[in-house]
């Protein structure tokens, strides 16, 4: 649905944007290289040592110790692939939100997706544990629905208040919806203390999941979302010119905003559903690319996919090795690295503004 609408809305490239930089192929290659290296690290490290030889043998279908093959195929490979999907989606959704709202602090959870997902997951964990709908566990379903409902609510509220004349109304609506959903979530958690540990581990995020099932579950949404945002990367560049100027160029700002928000929300809701609310990836990855490589969304969008995926796979390798054989929630690692970086971003944007 999103993809067809997305394609139809792309107008002829406005002349004003002709001078915006394209993605340098060296950086594209560097991004791919980083992703491959991080995936290799992700596959090779873990609480159980499995040598390079065994991993290569397993990949080409050779003779491997059945215990090691089991761990690789059932647990480690799906986890790395899931890291790629989740990291890439969060980073690209964050970049898209920052573009649409022209707000450097925007992340994929800006319009309440995290609060909605947390509430949905908490309700499912507390009141319907172990239930499945059409063979899919109810927790990711509830999280997906919650995230979508929160963003839809924020969008409707923002529209009713400001008529979408400015992005600020939408952001404030998102803040209000998030606060409201968070309060309900806290209340449910408070009254259902038996499920507190599960809820806690869900909120901090983890890639410890149902293996390939989760990968297949989110793959369609992730592809659709990434494709829609990728197609709009030039229009995101156009939006940086300012709303009035862009409108005068004949670009339907509100429609672009709606499509990009829907696409980013779809992807975010899908990955949050299986991995919980992983913090900061959506902020630090796009900003690192802007600082180091370039501000054009033709650079930021594709590279966010590659570096976001690489970063999360690496963070997850840390999550399962730093305190092995115990696990750290992956959100702890992304935020631990993310917070100092965030400060650096704020300092540098202030320096640029002055």
């Amino acid at each position, binding site marked *: 649905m999103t993809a067809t609408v997305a394609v139809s809305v792309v107008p002829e490239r406005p002349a004003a944007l002709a001078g915006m930089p394209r993605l340098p192929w060296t950086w594209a290659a560097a991004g791919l290289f980083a992703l491959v290296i991080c995936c290799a690290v992700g596959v090779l490290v873990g609480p159980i040592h499995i040598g390079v030889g065994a991993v290569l043998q397993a990949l080409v279908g050779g003779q491997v110790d*059945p215990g090691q093959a089991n761990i690789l195929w059932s*647990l480690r490979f799906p986890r790395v692939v899931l890291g790629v999907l989740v990291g890439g989606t969060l980073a690209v959704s964050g970049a898209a939100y920052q573009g649409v709202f022209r707000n450097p602090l925007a992340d994929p959870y800006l319009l309440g997706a995290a609060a909605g997902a947390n509430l949905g997951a908490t309700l499912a964990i507390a009141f319907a*544990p*172990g239930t499945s709908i059409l063979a899919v566990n109810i927790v990711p379903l509830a999280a997906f629905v919650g995230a979508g409902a929160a963003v839809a609510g924020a969008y409707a509220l923002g529209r009713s208040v400001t008529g979408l004349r400015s992005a600020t109304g939408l952001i404030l609506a998102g803040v209000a919806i998030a606060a409201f959903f968070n309060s309900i979530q806290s209340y449910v958690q408070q009254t259902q203390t038996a499920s507190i*540990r599960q809820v806690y581990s869900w909120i901090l995020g983890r890639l*410890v999941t149902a293996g390939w099932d989760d990968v297949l579950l989110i793959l369609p949404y992730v592809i659709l979302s990434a494709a829609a945002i990728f197609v709009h990367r030039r229009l995101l560049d156009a939006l940086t010119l300012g709303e009035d100027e862009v409108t005068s160029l004949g670009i339907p700002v509100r429609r672009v905003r709606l499509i990009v928000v829907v696409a980013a929300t779809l992807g975010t809701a899908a990955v949050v559903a299986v991995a919980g609310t992983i913090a900061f990836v959506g902020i630090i990855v796009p900003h690192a690319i802007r600082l180091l490589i370039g501000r054009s969304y033709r650079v930021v969008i594709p590279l966010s996919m590659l570096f976001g995926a690489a970063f999360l796979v690496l963070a997850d390798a840390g999550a399962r090795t730093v305190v*092995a*054989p115990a*696990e750290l929630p992956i959100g702890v690692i992304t935020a631990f690295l993310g917070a100092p970086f965030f400060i650096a971003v704020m300092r540098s944007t202030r320096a640029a503004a002055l």
Partner: protein
Amino acid sequence: MRMHQPGASAKLAFRLFAVAFVSVFLVASCGGTPTSSTSAPPSHFPVSITEPGGATVTIAHQPHRVVSLSPSATEMLFAIGAGSQVIAVDDQSNFPANAPTTKLSGFTPNIEAIAAYTPDLVVAAEDTGSLVHGMQALNVPILLEPAAKNLDDSYLQIKQLGLATGHSAQADSLVASMRSQVGALVASVSKPARQLKVYHELDNTFYSVTSATFIGQAYKLLGLTNIADAATAATPDYPQLSPEFIVSSNPDLIVLADTKCCQQDLNSVAARPGWRAIAAVKSGHVVGVDDDIASRWGPRIVDFMRAVASQVKQIERAA
């Protein structure tokens, strides 16, 4: 799409909110109506008890209006015959069935709600939300019996509750009976030819327990090796284990203490990616236990140990 008459709807919303708020309050107060209690045989009061935490609590008269905010303490109080003196227990205290469960919370205690029962003794597991300070301000003796680390802690708490409620003789005989049952169970598990490995699961995100915990001590007594002990360096008591570590540790026995919270059983465990390779799953030695029994330190620990011991004997017989 403007909102019409914002002032009017705000007023209506406020009125609805006020009505809802007041009704909740009324319902809560009705719940606080005290019930009468029968008296137990007299004992030697006043008594002074030194809590596990080091503080000394003096109880002047035999209490007849006991409020328990700890599910473990509730189970102990009823097991030593002090149940009739208990007028209210917290929302998590669901055993025994005749315990007077209320909305009171031991996690976020509300001093006024507790005071509404006019207790003459409050028993709790932890001092959260200035509970101790609040009760002392109201001149209500409060006894803290924190999470036990081993069976001896548990025995001590049972005896202290016996002393505090005037049921010392029953407390002593309960402890003696628990000791002899545990001793018999430990003896019944003959020294195995090889060390059996156990994985204890608290929930389906793989939180587990090490031997430093009360439940971990029970496994140790039964001669089992706990795979979670490998994680002690990072998390001394309740580590969240990596699934690949659990699979490669290949435990002989899996104990699911997440049958109520997360509806786990042999089938759901076998359906997890990679878990079919585990010895316990292959042989079907995946046993579900009551989540509550496995997270408390009351007299029912004996039932838990009996269930585990019977699994151990089955595994040894099959070997």
